[in-house]
C-alpha cells in the first residue's frame, strides 16, 4: 500500500470505530445528526470535494457525483425525519460512503498488486553494464551510454544488458524471463546472445552489436508496456456504455424521486415524498459502474501479463480478444513447423557396400562425404559435417573439384570420393541405387564404386504434431500450410502433422494471395492467424487478422510486423495463447453479465422498494470486489 492508500485506510478505520461507538451512544435529535456528521466528513470529504468541483466544471455524472448525491440525500432525509418528529436514520448515509471507500481502496490495492506482479514477471530491465577501465577494474555505467562495439563484462548472476557476441569465456544463460523456457542455454565464444538473459555460471565478455535502445530487452519491455494502449472491443464498449449509462441512471433516479409522488398527488392520494426519495437514492448507489470500468481492463492486463510470463508477447488487448475467435491457422513451413535447419535424416547403404559392416560403414560414408564437401559453402555440407560429428582434417583432402549443379569430387586419404546428386553418378558412369526419400539426396561413390546415399532434410519440430492437435481440440477448424518448398516435401510434412490444407511451391507474393483467398472464405466473426518465423513473412503477417511471429530471439523484423510474438519457437505456444485468450474473454464476459445482471435486478428491486440501502451497498461494492477478484484470475496461466 502506498501513502495515499494508507491514509484512506486510517480514515476507514477511524470512521468505522466512530460508527460502532455511535451505535451505542444514547443521544437523539439534531445532536445525533451532528455526531454522525463527524465520521461522514472524515470518510467522505474528498468525494464531496471532487463531486463539488465536478459540478462547477460541468463534469457531472461520475461516481463521485453519484455517491455524493446519494449520501447527502440520505443525510438530509434523516434531518427531515427528525424535524418532522420522526426518528432520523443517519447511519446508512455514512455506511454507503464508508463501504464505497473500502471498495475503492480494495480496488486500488488489487490493481497495484497485479501491476507489480506483472512488472516482476517482466523484471528484465538491466540497471547497468560493466565496462573494464584502464586499470583492469570493472566500472558500472548506464546501459544507454554504451556504444556499439564496446566490450562489456557480465558476471555470474547478472543480466545481460545489451545484445552482443561473446568474445571471451563460456557460461550457461537463463533465458526464462524471455522465453518461459526453463532449460539453461549454453554459450561460448562466437555465440550471439540477447539481452535480458541471466548469466548463470561463468564470466562472459561480450562485444555489443546494438545500442541499448535497439536491444531485445528494450524492445520487449516497450512492447509489453504499450500493450494496454491498444484497447479491445470490450473495453471500448464499456467506455461508450459508461458515457450513456451514468447520466441515464441519474435521470432515472430523478424520475423515480419525482414522478410517482406527483402521480400520487394527481390521483388524490398522499405523495410519500420521503419513501420515493429513499428509493431514488438507493437506485443511485446501486447504479455505480465501477465494477465494469475497472474489471475489464484489469482482465486484459492480467491476460497479457500472464501470457508474457510464458514467453508469449501480445501487442494489444485487441489481439488477445481476436485470438479467441481464431478459426483458421495458417503456417509457414520452414522455421515454423520444421526446424529450418538441414539435417541428415537417413543413410542408405547398398546391399554390397565397399565400406564394411553397417554401423561402421555408415560412419565411414559420412566421413568421406563430409571431407569431400568440406570446402563447399552449401548448407548441405554443414549438415554433413554435423552428422559426421568429429573434426575434419584438412590435410587429408586433396584435388577438390566442384562440378556445378552436380556435386564434388575429391581425394580423401588417397581415395577418389565423389559426392553429389544423381546426375553426378550418371556423369561418372557409376551404378547407383536410387534413393526415394523426401529431401535432398547426396550419393557417395568411393573409388568409382557406389558406397551409399545420404538423405538430408529439414526436420519437423518435435512439438509440431502436438501443436496442431492442440489447436484442433481448442476449436480451430482449419489448419493450412504455405511453403515455397517442393510439393513432395510439403505433402510429406503436412501428412505427418495432420494439416488440412497444403499449398506448395509458392513465391512470397503467392503467400499473400493465398492468405487473401483464405480470408475471403472466413466467416464474419472468425479470425485467421498466420504463423511465421518473421523472415520474409512480414507482408503476410500484417495481412492476416492476427500475425504471430516465432522465435523473436534475434529477429527484429518479426517483432515489428507481428501482433503476437512467441519468444521461443515452440508452436505449442499458439494453442496456449489461444487458451489464455479464451479464459480472459470468458472472465470479461462473466464480469459484464454478472455486474450488469446483479445491478439490473437490484435496480428493479430498489425502484419497487424491496431492496434497501444495505443491498444497494452490496450491489455496488460487493459486485466490484467480486469482479476484481475474478479479473485477477487472468494472471494465472496453466501451462
Amino acid at each position, binding site marked *: 500500500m502506498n501513502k*495515499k492508500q494508507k491514509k484512506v485506510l486510517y480514515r476507514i478505520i477511524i470512521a468505522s470505530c466512530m460508527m460502532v461507538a455511535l451505535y451505542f451512544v444514547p443521544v437523539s435529535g439534531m445532536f445525533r445528526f451532528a455526531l454522525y456528521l463527524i465520521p461522514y466528513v472524515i470518510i467522505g470529504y474528498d468525494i464531496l470535494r*471532487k463531486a463539488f*468541483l465536478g459540478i462547477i*466544471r460541468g*463534469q457531472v455524472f*461520475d*461516481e463521485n457525483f453519484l455517491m455524493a448525491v446519494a449520501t447527502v440525500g440520505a443525510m438530509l432525509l434523516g434531518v427531515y425525519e427528525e424535524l418532522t418528529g420522526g426518528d432520523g436514520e443517519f447511519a446508512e448515509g455514512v455506511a454507503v460512503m464508508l463501504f464505497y471507500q473500502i471498495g*475503492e481502496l480494495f*480496488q*486500488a490495492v488489487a*490493481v497495484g498488486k497485479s*501491476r507489480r506482479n506483472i512488472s516482476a514477471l517482466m523484471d528484465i530491465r538491466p540497471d547497468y553494464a560493466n565496462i573494464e577501465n584502464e586499470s583492469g577494474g570493472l566500472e558500472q555505467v548506464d546501459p544507454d551510454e554504451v556504444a556499439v562495439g564496446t566490450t562489456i563484462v557480465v558476471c555470474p548472476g547478472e543480466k545481460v544488458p545489451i545484445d552482443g557476441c561473446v568474445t571471451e569465456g563460456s557460461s550457461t544463460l537463463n533465458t526464462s524471463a524471455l522465453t518461459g523456457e526453463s532449460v539453461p542455454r549454453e554459450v561460448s565464444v562466437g555465440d550471439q546472445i540477447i539481452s535480458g538473459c541471466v548469466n548463470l555460471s561463468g564470466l562472459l565478455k561480450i562485444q555489443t552489436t546494438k545500442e541499448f535502445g535497439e536491444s531485445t530487452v528494450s524492445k520487449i519491455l516497450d512492447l509489453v*508496456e*504499450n500493450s*494496454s*494502449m491498444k*484497447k479491445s472491443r470490450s473495453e471500448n464498449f464499456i*467506455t461508450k456504455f*459508461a458515457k450513456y449509462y451514468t447520466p441515464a441512471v441519474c435521470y432515472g433516479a430523478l424520475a423515480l424521486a419525482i414522478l410517482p409522488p406527483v402521480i400520487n398527488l394527481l390521483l388524490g392520494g398522499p405523495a410519500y415524498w420521503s419513501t420515493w426519495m429513499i428509493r431514488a437514492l438507493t437506485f443511485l448507489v446501486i447504479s455505480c*459502474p*465501477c465494477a465494469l*470500468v*475497472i474489471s475489464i*481492463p*484489469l482482465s486484459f*492486463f492480467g491476460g497479457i501479463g500472464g501470457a508474457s510470463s510464458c514467453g508469449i508477447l501480445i501487442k494489444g488487448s485487441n489481439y488477445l480478444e481476436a485470438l479467441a475467435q481464431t478459426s483458421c491457422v495458417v503456417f509457414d513451413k520452414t522455421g515454423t513447423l520444421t526446424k529450418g535447419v538441414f539435417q541428415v535424416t537417413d543413410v542408405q547403404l547398398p546391399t554390397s557396400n565397399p565400406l564394411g559392416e553397417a554401423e561402421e560403414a555408415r560412419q565411414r560414408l559420412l566421413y568421406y562425404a563430409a571431407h569431400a564437401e568440406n570446402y563447399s559453402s552449401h548448407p548441405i555440407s554443414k549438415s554433413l559435417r554435423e552428422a559426421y560429428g568429429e573434426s575434419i582434417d584438412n590435410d587429408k583432402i586433396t584435388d577438390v573439384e566442384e562440378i556445378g549443379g552436380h556435386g564434388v569430387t575429391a581425394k580423401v586419404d588417397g581415395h577418389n570420393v565423389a559426392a553429389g546428386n544423381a546426375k553426378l553418378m550418371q556423369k561418372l558412369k557409376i551404378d547407383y541405387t536410387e534413393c526415394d526419400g523426401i529431401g535432398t539426396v547426396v550419393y557417395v561413390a568411393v573409388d568409382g564404386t557406389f558406397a551409399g546415399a545420404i538423405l538430408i532434410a529439414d526436420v519437423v519440430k518435435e512439438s509440431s504434431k502436438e501443436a496442431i492437435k492442440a489447436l484442433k481440440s481448442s476449436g480451430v477448424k482449419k489448419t493450412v500450410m504455405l511453403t515455397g518448398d517442393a510439393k513432395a516435401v510439403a505433402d510429406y510434412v503436412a501428412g505427418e502433422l495432420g494439416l488440412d490444407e497444403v499449398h506448395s511451391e509458392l513465391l512470397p507474393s503467392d503467400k499473400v494471395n493465398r492468405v487473401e483467398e483464405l480470408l475471403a472464405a472466413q466467416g464474419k466473426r472468425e479470425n485467421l492467424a498466420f504463423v511465421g518465423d518473421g523472415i520474409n513473412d512480414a507482408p503476410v503477417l500484417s495481412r492476416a487478422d492476427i500475425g504471430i511471429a516465432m522465435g523473436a530471439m534475434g529477429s527484429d523484423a518479426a517483432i515489428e510486423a507481428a501482433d503476437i510474438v512467441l519468444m521461443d519457437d515452440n508452436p505449442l505456444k499458439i494453442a496456449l495463447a489461444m487458451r489464455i485468450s479464451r479464459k480472459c474473454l470468458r472472465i470479461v464476459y462473466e464480469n459484464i453479465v454478472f455486474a450488469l445482471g446483479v445491478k439490473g435486478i437490484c435496480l428493479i428491486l430498489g425502484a419497487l422498494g424491496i431492496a434497501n440501502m444495505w443491498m444497494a451497498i452490496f450491489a455496488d461494492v460487493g459486485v466490484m470486489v467480486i469482479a476484481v477478484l475474478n479479473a485477477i484470475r487472468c494472471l494465472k496461466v496453466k501451462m
Partner: protein
Amino acid sequence: MKKSYKIEVDCANCAMKMEEAAKTVEGVKDAVVSFMTQKMNVEFAEGADDKAVMQAVLKACKKVEDDCEIYL
C-alpha cells in the same frame, strides 16, 4: 511524433476522462491513457510543439480530474 508520459491517476474511470480530455486539446492527434500501466501515449499533430501542447493537456486533465498528475 509520439511520446509516452508517466501519469498518476487513481481510478479507471478517471483515466478514461483524462483520455477524453487529452484528445480534445489542440495539437494532439491522438491520445491513449492506460490506467494499468499508468502511462499516457500522445501522438502530436504535424508541427505541434510538444512541450506547449503537453502543458495544455495537463491543464485539460486537471480540469476533469484534479487528482491526476502527468510527469512531463
